[in-house]
């Protein structure tokens, strides 16, 4: 059995058992919840990591995502896919974390994105093997959040605008800004 078959089998297994695991977790079954964690924590960590651009924070927030999930899982009514619902829980948790942790001096003095770019360059995680991920990490915060939510997570600009408390037009322009910065930095890399 090659790797793709293993992945397919795993996905089928997840699809078959997911609703049962969710139902058990909703009844307080921690073993079922642990299985859901095993299935989803790498995906949630990737989301946290891309949005936060900081591995340590991503690990902490990923834990918070699953604690929130445990507390809120009884709210899941099966109206959407569990994975979609979980992604929205995770996205809200990350955004809540960012709001809480936002540098208060930055708020007071309204230090703009340029500073964030400079700061984030120093924080590049050299353990990343994916060139695009490395460049995403270097984007200014708002451009990075919009890009990850739109291009990677598949949210619509209307949804992103609500989540990030910005105008739809701003979400679109941040996305285009992110794309331009990425095309440029990836171009430089491969020149």
């Amino acid at each position: 059995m090659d790797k793709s078959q293993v992945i397919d089998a795993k996905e089928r297994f997840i699809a078959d058992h997911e609703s049962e695991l969710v139902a058990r977790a909703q009844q307080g079954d921690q073993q079922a919840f642990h299985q859901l964690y095993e299935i989803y924590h790498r995906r949630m960590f990737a989301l946290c990591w891309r949005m936060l651009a900081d591995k340590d924070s991503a690990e902490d927030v990923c834990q918070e995502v699953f604690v929130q999930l445990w507390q809120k899982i009884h709210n899941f009514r099966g109206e959407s896919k569990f994975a979609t619902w979980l992604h929205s829980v995770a996205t809200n948790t990350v955004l809540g974390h960012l709001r809480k942790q936002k540098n208060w001096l930055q708020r007071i003095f309204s230090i703009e994105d340029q500073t964030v770019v400079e700061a984030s360059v120093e924080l590049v995680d050299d353990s990343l093997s994916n060139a695009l991920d490395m460049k995403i990490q270097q984007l200014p915060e708002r451009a990075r959040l919009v890009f990850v939510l739109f291009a990677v997570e598949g949210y619509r600009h209307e949804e992103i605008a609500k989540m990030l408390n910005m105008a739809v037009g701003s979400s679109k322009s941040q996305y285009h800004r992110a794309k331009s910065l990425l095309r440029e930095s990836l171009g430089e890399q491969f020149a």
Partner: protein
Amino acid sequence: MNKLISEQSLDEQVANLPKEMSPKRDLWQGIEKAIAVSPQLSSEKKQLQKKAPIVPMAWAASVVAAVLLTWFSFSPQLSIAPSNINLASVMKKDFEQQKQLMLTSFGQPELQQLSKEMQQQLEELSSARSAIDKALENDPDNSELLNLLRWTQKQELELIKQLYSPQWQTI
């Protein structure tokens, strides 16, 4: 002129981004510990209670920064007769003792183990405190500055307490 990759190439790279990444540490242990003490049904209320101190912290920090900014920008040079007791140095000494006591009670944690944001917050509170200390050197009896110093010290202690109190985030 900088070379750009094509939009198509970027789209392909986005589509090929890994969907999963593995955290370096085992996150489950902390989660397990947290969910053991947070029942599902009554959890939201608890969570709100747990998180409530963060908001006043942000407000407090913001107000300190705003007052400091206003103070250094617009304050007139006050001339108040110096007292014999330097209250600021007593407060500083008392604060250092309290901070040490608190850090000892948390097992002398390494600040480097905190996330960069947390380290930054602590550093900013600390530098705000240093700025007030410096202002007090020129105007040691200024009650507004003394109040500000006391408040900043309190926020720093509360932040340290919050950072090291959550048991489930640190394994």
